[in-house]
């Protein structure tokens, strides 16, 4: 059997292909490099990975789990959250200060302190979201006029949801 995945490393896509050579023997191609391992699943949800060959790298047990669209891998006492290139594109990757005020985490709206048509400054708090007993103030990010408000007090919001849209201030020459 074999499995192929592409992840971002330093912003660049790297294709990883794992191929079972026989028994517990795997050949893994990471970009242009080829590595060989002995690998086997453990009953505790982990996978034991033993590098094969001249390399002196120690064996380790890796634990992995999906996290939303990303894959979390814990190996050597560190957690890496790996992203696939297409999911990063799909997220839109809106820049900070594009006028869209997004919920930074899933939570409940505690206060909305703006309405459509309000002129706001970049550091003005527009919405307060709470999750796990902590409050988070969401600022406008840019100076401008509130175009849309989709947050309501007491409402639940998903991480990444756009709560307020601010239209950038028009250049004025007066």
């Amino acid at each position, binding site marked *: 059997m074999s*499995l192929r995945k592409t992840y971002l490393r330093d912003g660049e896509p790297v294709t990883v292909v794992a191929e079972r050579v026989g028994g517990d023997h795997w050949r*893994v191609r990471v970009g242009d490099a080829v590595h060989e391992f002995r690998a086997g699943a453990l009953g505790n949800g982990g996978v034991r990975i033993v590098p094969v060959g001249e390399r002196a790298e120690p064996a380790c047990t890796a634990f992995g789990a*999906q996290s939303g669209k990303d*894959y979390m891998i*814990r190996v050597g006492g560190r957690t890496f959250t790996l992203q696939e290139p297409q999911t990063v594109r799909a997220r839109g990757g809106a820049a900070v200060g594009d006028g869209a005020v997004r919920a930074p*985490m899933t939570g409940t709206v505690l206060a909305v302190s703006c309405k459509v048509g309000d002129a706001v400054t970049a550091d003005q708090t527009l919405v307060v979201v709470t999750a796990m*007993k902590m409050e988070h103030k969401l600022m406008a990010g840019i100076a401008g006029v509130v175009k849309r408000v989709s947050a309501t007090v007491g409402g639940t919001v998903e991480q990444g949801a756009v709560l307020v849209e601010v239209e950038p201030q028009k250049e004025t020459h007066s």
Partner: protein
Amino acid sequence: MVKPPPFRRVLIANRGEIAVRICRGLRELGIESIAVHSEVDRKCAHVMAADHAFPLGGNSAAESYLDVGKILSAAKAMDAQAIHPGYGFLSENANFARAVREAGLVFLGPNPEAMERLGGKSAAREEAMKAGVPVIPGTETDDGDASLIAAAKRIGLPVMVKASAGGGGRGMRLVYEEKDLAEAIAAGRREAKASFGDDRMIVEKAVFPARHIEIQMIGDKYGDVVSLHERECSVQRRHQKVLEEAPSPVVGDSLRQRMGDAAVKLAKAVGYDNAGTAEFLVDDQGNFYFLEVNARLQVEHPVTELVTGVDLVHLQVRVAAGERLADLLKDRDLRPRGHAMEVRVCAENPEGGFLPAAGLLRLVREPEGPGIRVDSGVYSGWDVPVFYDSLLAKVIVYAPDRATACTRLSQALRDAAYLGIPTNVDFLRRLVDDPDFRRGDIRTDFLNRKPGIAKPTEIPPDDFVLAAAVLTQALLPHAGNAAPSNTGDAIPAARTSASVWRELSGLRLLGGQQ
């Protein structure tokens, strides 16, 4: 001689890891435990740990774990003789303690009169001053925003704005400039109202940076109070404790004695009769200032248990049942032995500004080994709710000395895996591995001075990491993909052995009552 259990059944008015820990303590005493739970918590770890379960309905804290009426009804329906409040929620609410007593039940905490005299920060200050315990200059009462702002100016900035009823850093803010006072007070009031149902605030001179050191004590119904010595809790983030240890690297026998005496004197003065903690700030000259009393079991109580050998939950139950400390602690050497250290594993993203991160924990593997204790409230497949705080579990280690405790904790965190949502595990490990931390050079501003612990230089995944990611998915395509256990109704039906059925009886009862 084996003593008979002091109660037959005890209801735990709490959730998560502390409720699990209390269940264990009760079982050791031969007492049946009753869990209560909100809707999303139907299959929370504490419900699994208890002998019985009772649904409170609702999801927000206000409509579940903070609802006195519902909890008392549950206690009555389940025939409980006593209620353990845990920490947070109703634990320091004197009205709740009184309502429990009036319902003919035993409250496993201090009496409401002592709680009222010590529970609020401002009341506690007055009592401390009366008892001759040094306090930080500040306000004793809340006479409205204007008077708090005036007091702040009189004391001199920076000041600490705090919730009078507070604990755990909720509603607390360090304010440097006058213009920020009004907003700090308003935000503090909102947080305090949401967390404690009491929005009164106080203002104190900021003693900063300093060490946060607290004294664990336990009292009985006969006026006896014993100090179980200090815990060092200086490593904090936004006034929330991150790591706690005992003994403190800077407290010697003399300071330990003086702080312990001050705490005991204060507790005796108000008739304190259960577990409680007096918090102090200690400056570099060894002066200590009383902050507040936490009239309850603390999150960090395990480090005291490990170095003194007592079980605080057992003691809480026994003194509340009328036993004497003189008998319970007879012939016990309570001097601290060895070194204990605890970290709080939280569902939050340190690398992303510490935003809370509720969601599905697909794979949980908790550390084990000599000298490692894990007090956990989660398991693989648990969907961490947004409604309560972000604490998932506490990893606690015990070793002969501080240096060994540090390496043991670092290795324990290396072995820990909480995957599916961001957690602070790697952050905690960087903290424990920090050379200044290892030297014990810590103040409450430690993490502010060490931004690299929260935001390290990013290390891109090497080939081995990428290979491991693909190998784990190739070999265990379904591992780490546990379906959320707390959504949907299905309870594994194929497991029918008598012992399993007995353990699931709480869930069946719950199903029958909904």
